């Protein structure tokens, strides 16, 4: 036993220090690097120009997701269809060339395993508890649901990791978000994390790594934990974590890239030692009562702009500080909402079920449960369901979920980031609203002028049925 009780984050950090420097930074070893087509081309180019290699291609996995259209990728003869947008096609082609050139395992655009990086990593058993995981995408924090220290990086850091398998980092402070009690019936992990961000604010976790603690997380499925950790970045945190436990171990066992045999036994023993020690201190602690969490939606253009579905659009004057008042005014103007307006009367024209936050099989099941035997409302012009990976898609089809969606009038798409960000053809038209299961409601995120309301998959399905934001509990 070590003398000093340590948190989960501190144990992972300590296990990865290559060298400590005098200036307080440390060189940290990176165990797993996920690469996609948008933030990698210039990193590979820089390596090529400098005549450098990838230090550990075997710790790197590449898969395209951000730019890929989610419409059919093969024609009826099984031939690959071209991508209309020239720049997207070019980024995809670059990844297709760079991965083999640098010896990196590549999952191709038409492979069964293709999907969103943050869905593919856990699903393949590439992402592991206690590992340091990076990717050139801010929502890499997702993998913290397995108890991995995972965070997003920029293009020059991608280059740094490719060349050295390390990063120079300053250790973050620790923050505990403890949820007490039980969630009410029909309350999902997405509602919980939206509620948490509403409480702590988008700067609440700045400089910290959050550990989510309490019975709610122990009882939560791994997919739910991935959803919660995915959005910890929206609370300003560098990363989010849930301690690995028997559920985590059961989830990973037998996955294609997970350790096998003797290594597996050693891994399990180590994973079980990672939980925060009794008596370990956090630099910051926030306690949330689970009973306070309602089905939650956003009203503004920041993920902290949350309100219970039974609530109303807040008045800008209700915020204490002047800059938040100003931001709220601008948000309401952009969103076309009035203070005092009931959230459950806000009409939506678009519904997006997908993204690395909510595109796993449990998410699709939750949405299908609401949509079964129902039809999309006439006012909803565009409603798409985008599975997080080809394997999720296959599983959903095996369960007949695709039929439920199609019969309800929703489109069933190919895996990718889709309408999470307006980078591929899936965009929300200017001035229209979208009930979206993604993670960012920023101005223009889903397309120029698009108005995003972040919700859970069940709530998105409910909005598709009624044509407005709706308390899903009234439909079941």
């Amino acid at each position, binding site marked *: 036993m070590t003398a000093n009780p340590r948190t989960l984050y501190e144990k992972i950090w300590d*296990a990865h220090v290559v060298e400590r420097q005098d200036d307080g930074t440390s*060189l940290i070893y990176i165990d797993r690097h996920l690469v996609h087509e948008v933030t990698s081309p210039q990193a590979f*180019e820089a390596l090529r120009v400098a005549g450098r290699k990838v230090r*550990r291609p*075997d710790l790197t996995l590449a898969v395209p997701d951000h730019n890929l259209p989610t419409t059919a990728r093969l024609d009826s003869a099984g031939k690959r269809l071209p991508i209309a947008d020239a720049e997207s096609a*070019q980024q995809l082609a670059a990844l297709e060339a760079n991965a083999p050139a640098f010896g990196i395992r590549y999952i191709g655009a038409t492979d069964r395993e293709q999907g969103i990086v943050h869905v593919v990593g856990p699903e393949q058993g590439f992402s592991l508890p206690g590992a340091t995981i990076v990717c050139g995408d801010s929502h890499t924090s997702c993998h913290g649901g397995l108890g991995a220290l995972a965070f997003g990086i*920029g293009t020059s850091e991608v280059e740094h990791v490719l060349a050295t398998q390390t990063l120079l980092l300053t250790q973050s402070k620790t923050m505990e978000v403890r949820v007490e009690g039980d969630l009410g019936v029909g309350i999902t992990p997405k509602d919980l994390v939206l509620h948490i961000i509403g409480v702590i604010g988008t700067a609440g976790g700045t400089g910290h790594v959050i550990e989510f603690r309490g019975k709610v997380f122990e009882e939560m499925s791994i997919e739910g934990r991935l959803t919660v950790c995915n959005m910890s970045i929206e609370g300003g945190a560098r990363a989010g974590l849930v301690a690995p436990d028997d559920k985590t171990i059961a989830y990973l066992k037998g996955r294609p890239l997970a*350790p096998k045999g003797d290594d597996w036994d050693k*891994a399990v023993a180590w994973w079980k030692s990672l939980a925060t020690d009794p008596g370990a201190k956090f630099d910051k602690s926030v306690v949330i009562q689970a009973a306070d969490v309602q089905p939650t939606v956003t009203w503004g253009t920041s993920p902290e702009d949350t309100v219970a579905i039974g609530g109303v659009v807040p008045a800008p004057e209700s915020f204490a500080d002047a800059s938040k008042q100003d931001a709220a005014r601008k948000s309401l103007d952009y969103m076309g909402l009035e203070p005092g307006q009931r959230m459950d009367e806000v009409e939506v024209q678009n519904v997006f079920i997908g993204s690395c936050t909510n595109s796993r099989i449990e998410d699709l099941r939750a949405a299908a449960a609401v949509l079964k035997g129902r039809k999309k409302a006439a006012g909803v012009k565009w409603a798409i369901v985008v599975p997080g990976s080809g394997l999720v898609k296959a599983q959903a089809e095996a369960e007949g979920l695709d039929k439920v969606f199609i019969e309800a009038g929703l489109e069933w798409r190919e895996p990718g980031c889709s309408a999470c960000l307006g980078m591929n053809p899936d965009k929300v038209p200017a001035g229209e609203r979208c009930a979206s299961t993604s993670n960012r409601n920023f101005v223009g995120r889903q397309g120029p002028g698009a108005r995003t309301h972040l919700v859970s998959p069940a709530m998105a399905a409910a909005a598709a049925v009624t044509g407005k934001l709706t308390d899903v509990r009234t439909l079941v």
Partner: protein
Amino acid sequence: MKAIKEISGKAYPFGRKNVDTDVVIPAHWLKTISREGLGKGCFETVRKEPGNVFEDEAYKGSPILIAGDNFGCGSSREHAAWALLDMGITAVIAPSYSDIFSGNAFKNGILAVALPQDAIDRLMEVAKTDPITIDLEHQTVTTPFQDRFTFEIDPFRKHCLLNGLDEVGLTMARNTAISSYEDKARDALPFLAKGIAA
């Protein structure tokens, strides 16, 4: 990365304050796969203004850019540094910079010199007709008219720029430490250390 000892030549007397990275390189240039070629998009919107310095033949190819306070604010896009480099700019002189830009500039071997506004005003005058010299070794900016301004720079950054060391190269030089970590990890954490095959 190229080592920088001295940068001498014409300077764009731009002088504008709060130039954000969207002005340096507009968002629609971000869907690229190369660091090269971004110079064409550099200051794209400014180039449409009548009488702007970037389209003025007198300044074409200048290695130095003179700007106002808070240069490089806004989005963190590293493309801003790549675009400046691609346009041939290897040094910027301004009263202050956003943190992210100064980091990105350094990473890409651009010298960001901070001088007070009155020095900037004088250099803007000189740049209209004559060259400017930045001597990194001695931390001075001089003109043919006996002007001499000294500037501060972080010693570590100075060392890297003078010797053409980039962050990746510096870490690669710590190969022994990284290899010894890997050796230890193969024993202690084999399930993480063992990779996957391509």
